[in-house]
């Protein structure tokens, strides 16, 4: 079974990835797919900035512009940021808790393929009559009025990929609760594992309202129901509530793992344990909890009345407290440390002022009465790009550099990494800082153009120039990835030299069973503790024995592919196409057939025998 070390042909490798249930390979799949969608979403962003560079521009038409902004937002949130976050969760979290895999490897693969096919489905809308054009929030009255199939692609695509995310969340929750190594108590878990845990809980409770909202919209558009049809008694504000009950936790689903990644990087490269670990854990849980109490601050101008607005304003302000605790804990982690300025650390350090800027504008937005001015202007655009780019994207770029050796066994070039950082950092602030002022000067968001003479010209041009820098940064990163992969210089267990947590005690990349013997965890920063006592690796917690592993399976791919096919049938059934119903049935048959096979065919996995593990040792693979 120790085939991982052998050279394989392309076909075999492809089949391996199509059928894999190994969390490390699924992480790579998430990274590639998420990276691909990130580039697409980035291109859409560039188109937006070209169109807005000068007033009265006609680079794209008004209708196309609305499709681009909708797809930019939807792609970046659902198909780029979340999968990339999932990539690192999959790659690192099981290693950090000393597990051999996640609780449900099969479900893990299914989650990926559902996301992937949902994302592909959504993006195929470009090639059928037009992408969704009602904004990523898809407010019901506009979405119902939207012609063509764009919104249907949105509804079905997000439904499929959302399902994948939901089961992924459940999987991580169970993994963290049930599969921690001996000695790995909750309060010894690395912060990234903690944030994965809280994020997964948020996913579990936040995605069902989105599912319901999408179902209602689907029914309205396809089957003539009246949830959002005002003349029939419907109410479009229901959509706003359902969307934001999902949508607000969603931003914490993105930012908490980012906090987690930075909470790993800062102690590592400061050589100092995380300051105030328990309060960091507490703040994470509190942010997750409060994240569900504040959704209506996205609806201050909907007309919910002063009571609701005041309550949600105060609740929103409260979130600033745990977030502030985190910021100061990070600063104090570095205080008195021995700070090494690696590429990941560059992002971590730049994150603090960038995210604080986004955070304080968040508090400003919480002031309900003043928000009537900010709402739906470029001020809001600036705010959420400061938190999402300055927080999440910085973390994803940092994580890419930090975990690349652990995922691929080779280091990204540090010089190129720092060039990427500086280009991105400068471009980011140039693009978005000025947008605060555009909003305050009266520029609404989601406008495909603006008329001259309103004082918007110079600032928009500056903003567009910033996008050039960010684009260059991404190109440098891609070049770095290609060059690194071509050179492929192998690295050892702890290539940064400052690893503190369990993943750095393993080879890069780890063997497919991760731990030959489960490690004994003796405290926070388990690997660091052993290193400080002069040991080479972890002390095993069990004798060498057989390891039980799950079988690979093609069924997750098939189940997801079936839904993908069925979604086409459902969508074109609205046009009374003759082939649509057979396609729908075929798709559902593929999905349910695969589910049926999964149910009735026993799958006990296999065992790696002790002898084989010892053989591995002879070949020089250390566990």
């Amino acid at each position: 079974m120790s085939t991982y070390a052998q050279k394989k042909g392309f076909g075999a490798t492809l089949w391996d990835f199509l059928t894999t249930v190994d969390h490390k390979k699924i992480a790579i799949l998430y990274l590639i797919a998420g990276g691909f969608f990130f580039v697409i979403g980035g291109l859409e962003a560039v188109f937006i900035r070209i169109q807005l560079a000068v007033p009265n521009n006609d680079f794209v038409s008004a209708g196309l512009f609305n499709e681009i902004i909708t797809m930019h937002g939807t792609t970046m949130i659902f198909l780029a940021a979340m999968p990339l976050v999932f990539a690192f969760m999959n790659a690192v979290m099981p290693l950090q808790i000393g597990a051999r895999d996640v609780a449900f490897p099969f479900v893990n693969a299914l989650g990926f393929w559902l996301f992937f096919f949902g994302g592909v489905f959504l993006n195929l809308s470009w090639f059928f009559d037009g992408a969704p054009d009602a904004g990523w929030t898809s407010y019901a009255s506009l979405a119902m009025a939207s012609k063509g199939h764009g919104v249907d692609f949105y509804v079905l695509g997000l439904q499929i990929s959302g399902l994948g995310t939901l089961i992924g969340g459940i999987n991580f929750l169970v993994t963290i609760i049930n599969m921690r190594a001996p000695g790995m108590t909750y309060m010894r878990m690395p912060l990234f594992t903690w944030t994965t845990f809280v994020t997964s809980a948020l996913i579990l409770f936040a995605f069902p309202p989105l599912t319901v909202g999408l179902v209602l919209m689907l029914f309205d558009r396809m089957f003539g129901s009246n949830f959002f049809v005002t003349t029939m008694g419907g109410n479009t504000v229901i959509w706003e509530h359902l969307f934001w009950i999902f949508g607000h936790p969603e931003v914490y689903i993105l930012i908490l793992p980012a906090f987690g990644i930075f909470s790993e990087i800062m102690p590592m490269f400061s050589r100092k344990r995380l300051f105030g670990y328990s309060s960091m854990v507490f703040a994470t849980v509190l942010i997750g909890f409060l994240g569900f109490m504040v959704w209506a601050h996205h609806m201050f101008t909907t007309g919910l009345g002063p009571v609701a607005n005041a309550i949600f304003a105060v609740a929103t302000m409260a979130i600033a407290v745990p977030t502030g605790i985190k910021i100061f804990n990070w600063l104090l982690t570095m205080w008195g440390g021995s700070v090494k300025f690696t590429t990941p650390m560059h992002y971590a350090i730049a994150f603090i002022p960038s995210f604080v800027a986004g955070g304080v504008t968040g508090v400003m937005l919480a002031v309900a009465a003043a928000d009537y001015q900010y709402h739906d202007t470029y001020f809001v655009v600036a705010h959420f790009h400061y938190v999402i780019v300055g927080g999440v994207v910085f973390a994803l770029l940092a994580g890419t550099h930090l975990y690349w050796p652990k995922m691929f066994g080779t280091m990204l070039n540090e010089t190129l990494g720092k060039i990427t950082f500086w280009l991105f950092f400068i471009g980011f602030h140039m693009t978005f800082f000025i947008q605060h002022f555009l909003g305050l000067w009266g520029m609404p968001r989601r406008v495909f153009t603006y008329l001259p003479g309103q004082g918007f010209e110079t600032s928009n041009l500056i903003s567009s120039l910033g996008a050039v820098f960010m684009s260059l940064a991404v190109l440098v990163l891609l070049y770095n990835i290609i060059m690194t992969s071509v050179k492929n210089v192998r690295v050892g267990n702890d290539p940064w030299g400052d690893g503190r947590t369990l993943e750095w005690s393993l080879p890069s990349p780890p063997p497919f069973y991760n731990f030959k013997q489960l490690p004994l965890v003796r405290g926070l920063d388990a690997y660091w503790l052993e290193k400080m006592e002069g040991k080479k690796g972890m002390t095993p917690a069990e004798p060498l024995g057989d390891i039980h592993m799950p079988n690979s399976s093609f069924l997750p791919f098939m189940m997801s592919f079936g839904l993908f096919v069925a979604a086409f049938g459902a969508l074109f059934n609205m046009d009374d196409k003759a082939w649509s119903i057979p396609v729908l049935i075929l798709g559902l048959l593929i999905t349910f057939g695969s589910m049926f096979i999964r149910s009735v065919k026993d799958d006990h996995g296999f065992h790696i025998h002790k002898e084989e593990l010892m053989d591995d040792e002879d070949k020089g693979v250390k566990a």
Partner: protein
Amino acid sequence: MHAEEKLTHETWPAEPEKSTLEAKNKFLGFWFFLGGETVLFASLFATYLALKDKVPDSTHTLAKDLYDLPLTFVATMLLLTSSLTSVYAIYHMKNFNAKKMNLWLIITVLLGAAFLALEVYEFSHYVHEYNHTFTSSAFGSAFYTLTGFHGAHVAFGLMWFLTLIIRNSKRGLDLYNAPKFYIASLYWHFIDVVWVFIFTVVYLMGMVG
């Protein structure tokens, strides 16, 4: 302890649904899934309450004149009883008695099917007598979506039980399939609890006005 090992009445553990790591994971994961389902139904309930009696004009029947309490009461009793029979089934599962477990599961399935039949009758009654349809008003859409989602869950539960019964009819119980029976019954209880809420919020509160 490997899941596929053959066990006897003596070696059968007290909690077969949690005796292997896989089973423990399944058990916990399914509870989380039910947590998500709870939020899903909560959203549907909220939508229903927001759209209750929201109709375009006065020719439409409102909740207080629509619902037939005796009928839904019988349906409720059927479903509650089926929950009880599934408890018996799990009791026998824990006692390593596959035969009796299957018997009680079949009774559960029959009760569930009867519930579904009543629901179908109820819906057709509303459509034909009151012209209360899925597309006639926002109220109609919300009512059929909430009860329909529940009905679909019942139908899925029936298929699940049937598949389990047929698949395992020959080979009896082991630690690989015992957790499957257990979580299927968990699911069934959940559906039952949701119905109790539907009965209260939709029917009883609907009768009051």
